[in-house]
């Protein structure tokens, strides 16, 4: 019996009872919509992280001190380990290959005060190259210079959040003296706003000062808490890391990599770590949504099964006018597939709507991959076939004589 006739028969049968068809496909609709929305949210967050990271400089390298003795499990607070020295910074700046910019890092948290206003934050001691490494820009005023570093000058450059909180009246902060834990610093520049990053941190709550001033005047230390570098290009990052490693290992006289007292993380590494976490989250979400698809499929099977019983007389009639077992099987199978695919289409549309709803109302980033839609369709057809098979087979095996007399 030809396929188009069978198709027409199945279509007519479904349209006879549109409400039941709709209720049957509700499980699929919800399942597909949630898969699409979950994937969109997961992909959106992943892409957002990726772009945030690349915005920060995808060729960024972070060097931190590391206590190999007490490692394993809990990470030690890097601020207490004293193995990174100013000389390390100098050597890397002068000798490391494939490295474009280097800045040391020392920081301290405390209260910033200006007249009656205060704001808790931290002060980061860096060099001018820090701006380039972190892709920061000066909006007004100037960044401090190497001379300020040589002279341990107490000058600083602040971010928008600090400016707004210490100068709520809107005055120009430049030239004003603010105190950090009672130590005066003159504001010489203001950074362009960067907003919040994906990790929820306010990138404008920052105060930069010459690292020498922070080391000597605030912390009274002579070691560094970290060194930031940028590689010449993203691809050269691994080579840059290698070169830095050689220098540090040489300086610290450690030949066994397991005993290195420093840690080098590249942005690339961090990026792939974050995106793989994000991928994992996406997969988990999609699995949960996938389970609801299976439940939807079970719903189809239930309804088709009940439908076969209810339509026993009809099946008997069809057989009496010449439908073979195969014709009946095909009809019910096509009905199941039509229901699940239609449910899939509606689910995809609903998924789109839900995803955009999340974007508009919750502000979360979303990204809909075309493969998620394709997969949703394949899964729906498979569900239709798989869960429709058993009821369809049952229908085909009915005996026409008994079926037609069924009450």
């Amino acid at each position: 019996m030809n396929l188009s006739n069978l198709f027409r028969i199945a279509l007519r049968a479904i349209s006879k009872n549109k409400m039941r068809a709709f209720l049957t496909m509700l499980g699929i609709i919800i399942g597909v919509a949630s898969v699409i929305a979950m994937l969109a949210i997961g992909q959106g967050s992943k892409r957002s992280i990726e772009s945030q990271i690349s915005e920060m400089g995808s060729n960024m390298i972070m060097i931190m001190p590391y206590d190999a003795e007490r490692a394993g499990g809990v990470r030690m607070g890097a601020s207490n380990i004293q193995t990174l020295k100013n000389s390390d910074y100098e050597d890397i700046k002068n000798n490391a290959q494939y490295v474009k910019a280097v800045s040391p890092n020392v920081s301290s948290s405390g209260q910033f005060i200006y007249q009656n206003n205060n704001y808790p934050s931290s002060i980061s001691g860096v060099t001018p190259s820090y701006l380039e490494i972190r892709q920061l820009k000066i909006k007004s005023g100037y960044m401090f210079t190497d001379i300020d570093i040589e002279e341990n000058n107490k000058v600083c450059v602040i971010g928008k959040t600090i400016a707004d909180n210490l100068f709520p009246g809107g005055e120009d902060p430049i030239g004003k003296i603010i105190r950090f834990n009672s130590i005066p610093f003159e504001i010489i520049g203001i950074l362009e706003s960067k907003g919040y990053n994906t990790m929820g941190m306010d990138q404008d709550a920052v105060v930069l000062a010459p690292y020498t001033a922070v080391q000597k005047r605030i912390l009274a230390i002579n070691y560094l808490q970290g060194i930031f570098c940028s590689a010449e290009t993203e691809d050269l990052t691994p080579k840059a890391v290698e070169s830095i490693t050689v220098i540090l290992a040489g300086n610290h006289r450690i030949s066994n990599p397991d005993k290195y007292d420093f840690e080098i993380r590249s942005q690339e590494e961090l990026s792939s770590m974050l995106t793989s976490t994000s991928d994992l989250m996406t997969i988990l979400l999609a699995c949960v949504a996938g389970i609801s698809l299976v439940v939807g499929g079970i719903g189809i099977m239930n309804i088709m099964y009940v439908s076969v019983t209810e339509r026993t007389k009809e099946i008997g009639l069809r057989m009496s006018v010449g439908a073979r077992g195969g014709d009946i099987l095909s009809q019910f199978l096509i009905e199941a597939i039509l229901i699940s695919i239609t449910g899939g289409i509606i689910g995809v549309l609903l998924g789109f709507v839900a995803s955009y709803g999340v974007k508009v109302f919750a502000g979360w980033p979303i990204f809909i991959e075309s493969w998620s839609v394709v997969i949703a369709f394949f899964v729906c057809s498979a569900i239709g076939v798989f869960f429709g098979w058993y009821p369809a087979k049952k229908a085909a095996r009915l005996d026409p004589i008994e079926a037609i007399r069924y009450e």
Partner: protein
Amino acid sequence: MKKTIIQLTDIKRDFLVGEETVHALKGVSFSIEEGQFVTIMGKSGSGKSTLLNILGCLDTPTSGTYLLDGTSVQSMNKDQRARIRNRKIGFVFQSYNLLANTTAIENVELPLMYNSAISSEERRKRAIEALQTVDLGDRLMHKSNQMSGGQMQRVAIARALVNNPSVILADEATGNLDTRTSFSILKLFQQLHREGRTIIFVTHNSEIASYCERNIVLRDGRIIEDTHNSGILSAAEALEKLPKEE
């Protein structure tokens, strides 16, 4: 010499019910020629339903031969019998058995949907012709739930005609209808008979026998009577004679 449409030779049918064997048909033989209008009668338990199922190729005999329009069908498998039903047999049931919530024309088209040799234009044309034959040419798009019992049975008859069958098998076709409607359906059958159709009418109602040309009576799985009717009554006249409705 008219062609033999149906030839049954020593048809037996046994059923296994629990541990016992029930002999529903114990050796039935007869032949029916083209254009005959036959009633098969018997009380319940006489085996007439079993005989009907075998005649309609819904069931196969335990032994014996059945030639339908020259083809031997007793040893056909399920699919082959389905095909025979589709091409050569038209059923009319007591309870009409139309598809619910479906138009008359879709109901009548149903057998042709399972015949891939017929195009959709041809199918529609035949369905319309069949409905016109049964006087429902103006109700093509009416749905089954909008029709009276008599109209529904007419649709069922049109459906039985649409594939141009060798034989029409009617199982208590007037059983669910009132007297007036029953007569109008009988009138339709007689009209189809005049047009040359072969019709087998299975019933337990002996009144119907007077409207057909030949009566076969079954009892206990055997034929006890096979007579030709000399004085066939006209259903049309009987319909006229009924008291007029207010």
